């Protein structure tokens, strides 16, 4: 790896200091004094690294993924070569930070030429990965298609004025996500640089995928906003990148109810309603978040069972098993799942409920020595005929969930217990402790528990989901 020292930064800084010092002697630092600026070099890899660059593979990345290839290039004598391993061997992923900050505010895009040994989609590629700033200005282009011919690619900068001292020049992550996904191939990148194309236009930022979201929540909870920036390129194509929250300016309609920091973290300060909107460089983002924190809830009762007698799925009182999803995307499901934080207590909030499921298949739970599932439920909605049922599924030895598509019940080697909370207990506005015996279909088969599903017609909060002896 070639690492050049930025002597000119030092010179600039020194000169800047001398100037500042001289100015200081005469009349103090005036408000117009400009800060020392950083080099504006936009070149990253032409035939070798330009301007001092590091190479940091991501944790778990295939160690030999990156090399400089002297035999392949789009222009000049060399290119960046990335060898993506076959499925199961890991992935290729790395960031290429500049050894010193650069001022990229005069550019409008990261561009490069690329080709691959076969047609493929690069999972994620972009710039702005910078450990020092927690990736404050990260940009991600997802699923970039790449062909066997050299082609020029453009990743636009969401708002270049933010990048006046950026280190994260380039990053990528690509791997076979399953046996059918492409792996065991090579792609090359050449002429990697920031450019001012002049043809990146028509910015259309968005938060929450452009949707006006409603969030019922509680005082003290937090949530995070994610956003995208879309541009129209000179070729006429639209391109959308994920833009880190710090590219956005966030606005709250009522800062006594909700505030947003530059990381896109919304903090609910009080009960009430507030609308969060955002913009990039003065362009209002499509989509918004309406926060309704008028829910009046308390924390669930703290579990008292000894940790060595439970297997916990979701609780702040225990160490939890790996959960794949708290809302398995069942076909036809309208259920929306969000997370609340009440003090230090994390809660699962299900709204617009018809049915959904919590899945834990990596690995499954062996509950052979357990006898019950415990859940704490808090019903939020005032429904005239409330109903709420749970079922617990063992997926059996064949390693997959087998579900009758008509009934939703188990087939093949799956077993299940169904449990309906008696309607008299379904009182809204208070915590209800539910204990479901692992009987019925699970009486003799509960060593591969994989799913807790529910169906009903009430909005409810869940906490302290654990199996116990």
């Amino acid at each position, binding site marked *: 790896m070639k690492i050049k020292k930025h002597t000119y930064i030092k*010179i600039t800084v020194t000169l800047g200091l001398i100037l500042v010092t001289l100015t200081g002697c005469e009349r103090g630092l005036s408000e117009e004094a400009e800060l020392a600026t950083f080099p504006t070099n936009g070149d990253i890899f032409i035939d070798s690294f330009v301007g001092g660059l590091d190479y940091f593979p991501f944790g778990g990345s295939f160690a030999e993924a990156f090399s400089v290839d002297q035999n392949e290039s789009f222009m000049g004598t060399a290119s960046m070569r990335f060898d993506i391993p076959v499925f199961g061997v890991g992935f290729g992923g790395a960031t290429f930070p500049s050894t010193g900050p650069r001022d990229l505010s005069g550019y409008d895009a990261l561009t490069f030429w690329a080709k691959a040994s076969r047609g493929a989609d690069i999972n994620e590629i972009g710039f702005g990965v910078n450990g020092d700033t927690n990736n404050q200005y990260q940009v991600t282009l997802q699923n970039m298609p790449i062909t066997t011919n050299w082609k020029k690619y453009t990743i636009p900068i969401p708002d270049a004025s933010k990048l006046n001292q950026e280190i994260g020049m380039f990053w990528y992550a690509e791997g076979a996500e399953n046996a059918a996904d492409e792996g065991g191939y090579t792609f090359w990148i050449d002429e990697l640089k920031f450019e*001012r*194309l*002049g*043809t990146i*236009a*028509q910015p*259309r930022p968005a938060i929450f995928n452009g949707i006006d979201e409603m969030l019922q929540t509680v005082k003290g909870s937090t949530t995070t906003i994610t956003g995208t920036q879309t541009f*129209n390129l*000179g070729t*006429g194509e*639209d391109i959308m990148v994920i833009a880190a929250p710090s590219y956005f300016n966030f606005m709250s309609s009522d800062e006594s109810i909700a505030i947003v920091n530059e990381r896109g973290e919304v903090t609910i300060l009080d009960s009430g309603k507030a609308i969060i909107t955002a913009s990039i460089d003065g362009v209002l983002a499509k989509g918004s978040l309406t926060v309704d924190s008028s829910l009046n809830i308390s924390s669930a009762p703290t579990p008292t069972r000894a940790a060595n007698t439970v297997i916990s799925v979701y609780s702040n009182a225990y160490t939890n098993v790996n959960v794949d999803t708290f809302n398995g995307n069942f076909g036809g499901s309208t259920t929306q799942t969000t997370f609340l934080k009440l003090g230090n207590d994390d809660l699962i909030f299900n709204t617009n409920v018809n049915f959904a499921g919590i899945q834990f298949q990596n690995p499954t739970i062996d509950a052979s020595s357990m006898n019950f599932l415990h859940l704490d439920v808090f019903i939020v909605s005032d429904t005239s005929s409330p109903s709420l049922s749970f079922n617990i599924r063992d997926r059996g030895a064949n390693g997959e969930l087998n579900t009758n598509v008509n009934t939703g019940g188990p087939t093949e080697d799956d077993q299940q217990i169904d449990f309906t909370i008696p309607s008299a207990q379904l009182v809204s506005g208070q915590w209800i402790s539910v204990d479901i015996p692992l009987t019925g279909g699970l009486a003799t088969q509960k060593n591969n528990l994989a799913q807790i599903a529910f169906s009903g017609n009430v909005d409810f909060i869940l906490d302290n989901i654990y199996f116990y002896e």
Partner: protein
Amino acid sequence: MNKMMNAKTSNMNRIYTSKIWNYFILLVLLFYIGCNTSEEQTVATFSNLVMQDEFDVDGTLNSSLWTYDIGTGMNGWGNNELQYYTDRPENVTVQNGVLIITARQEDFNGAAYTSARIKTEDLFEQTYGRFEARIRVPFGQGMWPAFWLLGNNCNEPGFTWPQCGEIDIMEFRGQEPTIIHGSVHGPEYSAGNAITKSYQLPNDRFDTGFHVFGIEWAPDYVNYYVDDVLYNQITREDVTGEWVLDHPFYIIINLAVGGSFVGSPNSDTVFPQNMLVDYVRVYKK
């Protein structure tokens, strides 16, 4: 070490100074050459202003100069265009010194889009001259703004289009934001066989700012320019048929949606879309 570096730095400064001097001479030279080039490339010579609309009065268009085409024409105005043209303020208005033609996605009299097409037919017609407008075009797949001239005898027997002649000063495909097209149509050189040249804006695009689109039309040629760049000349020798550009033409400005030239809008096309016209000016020699 410090001293060495200082020595090097000052040495470098000297080299720089001499280099800068060289650059300066080069710049001066370039400047002179630049002047020569622009003298060679005379963009426009007709300077006798005979018609202008600066769109300085908000509201409806000046009715002594402009009229409207309404509806869907025959076969989508001959091009399978998808819009219904109206004269409603939703589709055509003057605001803040700018003519705004707006293409909307809305169900209207059986069409899926509305827009506007204005013309000077019977109100301002002229043979030869310099026709110029300052325009900002919309963008997106299926957008087709145009600034063009049509012969005033298209309705006369024996002169139906393309015999009556057409001069397209500016046509633009919304999906090609950096390129405009200038054409003439006549007998044996119409539609897909028109005499056309395209002009690509270097390091910029047409939908982000205003640009001047013009022609200078004389008995033997039509010159095409964008801003200060003369990019084409079409002469009698260039057309593959009879030269029919020798009688009065009128001005049309429209924003079509879809049609054979651009294809239909797609899910990425943003509506509404605006075509902005800062002014239209016509000169004689």
